[in-house]
């Protein structure tokens, strides 16, 4: 279904004409460009793509696209996305959320959808702050960070989403940076092509409420994993790299593909889905209902 050799030039118009809500210069524009390029390059028909978001600035993501989309509830995009995908395996389902949404209120769903290896691409626009609620600390805010809810500096440690996803059994784990949308598009393409649960943690700076983790701040710190010969087939190497930012006090921050492994995904193991998409399975006949009823005689 997906053409991996598609030309870089977009094959179809993917924009709906709706403008996202982001501030000028917001990192999320880069993510929009990355998703757009990935879907275009792979030649995925717009009617077969579903972009699912939660709540927050990130939740604007489905609207500028001419694909199908669900703008759901805060923290719940993964169950909604998983429901769509389990119902119709022929669809390309992309979850697009934020750090508060996916690493805070909805973090449980990350763990469980990773371990059940649902074939989803989950992109988290991680800006280390709550933007739409005007600047409170988020689960990835750095220790000591001053925000509206932590005016004396945060005394909580930031979550390590890459490490969490790895430990939870995600089969494709990558990190990207909005300042490099071409690299990000490659990470997203890889995730869409990967059959299984993919997390892409994207540094997507908030230009209004996060004065610490800016584009420049990240530019000075990020480096690409393939430039250091990282072995993305090794879970130990991936876990080690996931700790690097914390260990170097955020001086060296790796981006790129941390880990990728081929494992059967949920629909390949489920007894019913093995027979085909749930949507295409026939409705029961009266005889089949009668047969079931006989079990109770």
């Amino acid at each position, binding site marked *: 279904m997906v053409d991996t050799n598609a030309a870089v030039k977009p094959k179809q118009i993917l924009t*709906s004409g709706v*403008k996202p809500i982001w501030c000028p210069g917001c990192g999320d524009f880069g993510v929009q460009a990355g998703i757009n390029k990935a879907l275009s390059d792979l030649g995925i028909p717009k*009617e077969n793509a579903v972009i699912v978001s939660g709540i927050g600035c990130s939740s604007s993501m489905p*609207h500028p696209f001419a694909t199908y989309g*669900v703008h759901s509830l805060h923290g719940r995009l993964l169950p*909604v996305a998983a*429901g*769509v995908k389990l119902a119709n395996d022929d669809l390309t389902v992309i979850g697009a959320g934020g750090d508060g949404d996916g690493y805070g209120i909805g973090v449980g769903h990350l763990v469980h959808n990773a371990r059940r290896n649902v074939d989803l691409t989950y992109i988290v626009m991680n800006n280390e702050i709550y933007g739409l609620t005007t600047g409170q600390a988020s689960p990835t805010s750095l220790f000591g960070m001053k925000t509206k809810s932590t005016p004396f500096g945060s005394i909580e440690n930031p979550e390590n989403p890459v490490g969490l996803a790895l430990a939870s059994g995600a089969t494709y784990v990558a990190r990207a940076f909005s300042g490099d949308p071409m690299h990000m598009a490659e990470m997203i393409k890889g995730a869409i092509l990967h059959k299984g649960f993919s997390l892409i943690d994207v540094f997507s700076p908030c230009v209004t409420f996060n004065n610490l983790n800016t584009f420049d701040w990240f530019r000075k710190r990020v480096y690409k994993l393939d430039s250091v010969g990282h072995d993305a087939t090794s879970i130990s190497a991936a876990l080690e790299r996931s700790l690097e930012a914390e260990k170097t006090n955020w001086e060296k921050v790796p981006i790129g593909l941390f880990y990728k492994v081929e494992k059967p995904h949920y629909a390949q193991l*489920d007894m*019913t889905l093995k027979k085909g998409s749930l949507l295409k399975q026939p409705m029961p006949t009266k005889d089949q209902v009668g047969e079931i009823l006989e079990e109770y005689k």
Partner: protein
Amino acid sequence: MTSVALRIAGAHGDGVESSGALVIKVAARNGLHVVAYRGYGSIIRGGHCWYQVRMGDSEMNSYGDGIDILIALNQESIENQKSHLNDKAVVIYDPSKIKVDTLDASKYRLTPIPLLDIAITASGDPIMRNTVALGAAIRFLGIDISAFAEVLKGQFGRKGESVVNQNVKAATEGYNYQGVQTIYSLRGDGKHRYSLDGNTALSIGAYAAGCKFYSAYPMTPASSILHWFAAHEDKGVMPKQVEDELAAINMAIGASVAGVRSMCGTSGGGFSLMVEGLGLAGMIETPLVVVESQRSGPSTGVPTKTEQGDILFVMHASQGEFPRIVVAPRSIKESFKVAADAFNLADRYQVPVIIMMDLYLSEHVETLDSLDTESVHIDRGKVVTENTDGGRFKRYLITDDGVSPRSIPGSKGLEFVAGSDEHTEFGDLVTDAHAGLDWAIEVRKNMHSKRMRKIETMLKNESVFVPEVLNDGADYFLVTFGSTTGPALDAINLLKAGGKNFGLISFSYLMPLDKEKTKKLLEGRKLINVEVNYTGQLAQVIRMNTGIEITQSILKYDGEAFTAEEIARQALALVSK
């Protein structure tokens, strides 16, 4: 009508449940009618539990007030059950383990049988003491031992011939034990009946309607729906056990957006977590069926006991206003029908439909001659598959009936975004850049009224949103909803035998209600609401919809279901004042 209530009592782990299931099968296959209910606790081994199987020669709607035959498997069972024993009740017990000196030997037919000794001699397995006791009970009931042997063969056939033979031998020893003789003679009509509980009937109804996706987190008393879907996964359905009820409802919504008929289920505590998701389904107008099987609340409450305490909560759950359908099946048979219809209603009006079960309805077992599988048909409502005008698809088109055309992902030219924020006909949000602009205010007003208009449409198109009146000319009327309707039905017959002319007004669909018709049906009658809750929630719903205040009620909130006798006694007391 002749009926006999057999109660098996013991500790969790004593095989009380499986013994009850055997008796139900024997009766159902021998032309008898059964209503059976189980009392148990939140414990796997130990504690006290019982299974009451009421068998009769005609249809019954309640599990019986007293015990006619008690099989006591431990000392505690004697002490706990003696207040329920009817006069002349048979008490089967093992004298080597149990003392009965607290029972008045002149009032009951005490039947000591060395159950354990016989079991060990017959099979070497002490658990077969239950089979010995059941063999004796079968004799008292007047059922032939061959009927019991047949069921044992079916039950244990997979374990091999010797296990079957040991069981039959144990049962026969009990059947032939000295002093055991036929005292009841239940005459069946020869029909093989179905025996199933409410959750099973509901699950089969959902299956028949083409429900392919069921998501849930385990919670008593809804878990058996998840087990049903899991056991029938080879029939093309997908059970999904998830991490919490937030995931359960949102995953079902996702599957429904993708076009698959989907359901999720839980009890009140889990439903509390589903509340936000319910509003999402309402806002994005995604069809959804939710099962809420009530148990005693609040909080963890009494997890293994019944209540009808959640209807006001469910009717008003989630912020804001949106149309929903709330229905409480009145019987096991109706649980099938309600579930099968729920998916059509959800699709037709693109609303959540909540099926209110309760522990009693979910778990008690009845025999049935049939389920109405013939009447099941599938109506997916306004699903469109082609873009006919070439323009951008208006998923939320403003229509007179409030229902908009709906597309399924994968359909070309019909793409849209389903948004939990207020949105335009296309699904574009009006809540951010446009909030407060005149046109956005107009869109909000029109879109909200479009959604709410669906209530009028369903009231106009469907005939189910009124209560049912039985015995129209009666002097007094019991008023019920959901599972209390069964025992109330039997209570009316008991009252009639006592010379009082009672009718019954019972609600299955609770929301929306056809106010005018409901008012007309209730007006000018002497009404007594019968509910398993403290505040008379149905009476409140009635008053809210019709202005009619019911001033006499029979309420119960001790965790047990009503028996017919209990309702009849209290009703009589109220009208004799």
